[in-house]
């Protein structure tokens, strides 16, 4: 009984729209015939599978995940281990600084990172001073910027989770290993990493899903040069729906992206399910 308002909202606004999305993906629909879409079956899907730009966006999304997620996790882990060594009084200041990119609105954060690279920006200046050429927004540089921004914006999450996880590591374990003559590196390898194993899985899955649906930063960074090659799948879907006005096709793309993410999502959900039933 207590559940009903919440369940109702979720059914009406999450389950039902997903089904609507599948239905819409089988219609030919533009802004002109919203009220009378034309049923075309699976034609939209065939068109998407044939769309070179879609596959470019797919490749870039996968490359992005393959580079960004390991980078975020390893930098986050490294900083968490280092932070663990510092006296707790100083930690607060560092944590405040580290969390800044995480708390600020993604669009604002992206604009701020972009400011560094604008003409007259401090990094653009350093770039020119060191390399002798001007920093310009090209396909390659925008792609690197998207990666750099994701490292800046998304690392705080693994960092803070790993750091909190390290606080639950009993001191005795470390001390015992010291007596056995273990070096610091071996401690990290044989005590800290096994201790955090389940958190690595958790953070990894969440980071992959977040990287998969990255939109805001790519939107802001490609605004200046809409080179389609630097688009991720979400952005291409967005442009297909809002600029090209092919709503049926865009819905087909979003159905395809949902099906693709199930590869990661299903293990994640199974894991959560097992944990919750055990906890019960």
């Amino acid at each position: 009984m207590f559940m009903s308002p919440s369940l109702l909202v979720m059914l009406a606004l999450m389950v039902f729209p997903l089904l609507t999305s599948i239905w819409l993906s089988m219609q030919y629909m533009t802004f002109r015939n919203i009220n009378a879409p034309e049923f075309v079956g699976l034609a939209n899907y065939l068109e998407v599978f044939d769309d070179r730009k879609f596959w470019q966006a797919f490749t870039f999304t996968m490359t992005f995940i393959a580079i960004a997620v390991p980078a975020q996790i390893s930098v986050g882990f490294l900083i968490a281990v280092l932070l663990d060594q510092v006296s707790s009084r100083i930690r607060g200041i560092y944590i405040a600084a580290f969390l800044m990119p995480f708390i600020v609105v993604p669009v604002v954060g992206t604009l701020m990172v972009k400011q560094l690279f604008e003409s007259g920006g401090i990094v653009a200046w350093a770039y020119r001073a060191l390399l002798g050429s001007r920093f310009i927004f090209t396909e390659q540089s925008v792609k690197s910027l998207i990666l750099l921004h994701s490292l800046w914006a998304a690392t705080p999450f693994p960092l803070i989770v790993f750091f909190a996880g390290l606080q639950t590591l009993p001191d005795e374990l470390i001390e015992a290993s010291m007596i056995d003559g273990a070096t610091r590196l071996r401690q990290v390898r044989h005590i800290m990493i096994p201790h955090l194993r389940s958190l690595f899985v958790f953070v990894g899955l969440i980071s992959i899903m977040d990287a998969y649906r990255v939109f805001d930063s790519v939107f802001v960074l490609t605004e200046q040069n809409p080179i389609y090659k630097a688009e991720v799948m979400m952005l291409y879907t967005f442009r297909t729906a809002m600029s090209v006005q092919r709503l049926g096709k865009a819905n087909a793309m979003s159905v395809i992206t949902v099906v693709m993410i199930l590869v990661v999502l299903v293990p994640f959900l199974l894991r959560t399910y097992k944990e919750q039933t055990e906890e019960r």
Partner: protein
Amino acid sequence: MRRIENRYALMVIYALLTIYAFFSVIPFFWTTIQSFKTPRQANSRVPLFIFEPTADNYTDLWLKSIPDDPLLVAAALVAIFGFLAFLGMQAGRFPFPRGYVYLGILAVGFAVLWSIPGFIRTQTFYDYFLNTIIVTVGAICISISIGCLAGYALARYSGIAGVIILVTALGFRSLPGMAYILPYWWFGQRSGLYDTHILLIITLVAINQPFTIWMLRSFFMNIPKEIEESAMVDGANRLTAFLSVIIPIMWPGIISTALFTLLLAYSDFLLVRILTQSNWTLTVAISKYAAGEDPGHITLAAAAAVSAAVPIIIVVFIFQSQLVKGLTSGAVKG
């Protein structure tokens, strides 16, 4: 003997941490500097750190024309909001419950914010700011009230169905938002709700609901069952026991969850971008400044970014302990 005591090793650690901290904050630092420059200074070949600051970017962004006596207006606004903040800090001293004091302060504060365009000529940026307040406050109120009921039920009910609901909700939350937003757009177009606050609020509530019930449930689970049971022995039914006994001790959890809902609603870009045409929130409004041809766009973009970041930084600063509590407790539990 957990920590490294070698002095040189420690120095390296501090150096690395400081470099990373610098990497984290430099965009904030630089953007703030840029926002106080003239376009000419901002575009200079060598970055300027010493210059005569100007507030022109901010006044251009927020105001159509500067009022006749800007100092008087600014002083009046600072006095009003300072007084409200002071009242908020002294809320415990009034002869009636704190809740009424906070509600009264919020009502007066909103009334002042909404009456400002009556005597100062503000830009549309200010309207976007007001939109943001409506949408975030609306989303928080609805989301927390229905989320509390659901979170409480899920915390007390231990059947398998509860777990299935929770996990399914999490699954829906983890899907790319685009899958819902395009149908919302279509629904908005057909029902005529497109470009209204109501559509934004209910869709934001729906999208944030899984997260809200997960978080509130974990807070409710920390409250022992005996508390409401003893109230129910005294003759209260479950709903009254919930409202009069459980909710009052849940405030820290509710504030923590509300804070995360605020961050989510405030920073949502895709949903607001697709579902509105002119009733933008700040987040969508500032993305307009991402690109531009005229040399002034850099400083204006900087001022817009700082303006949108400041409210959230103030909120986070006030509630930082709740935020860190929510972040770490939720995360470590998995």
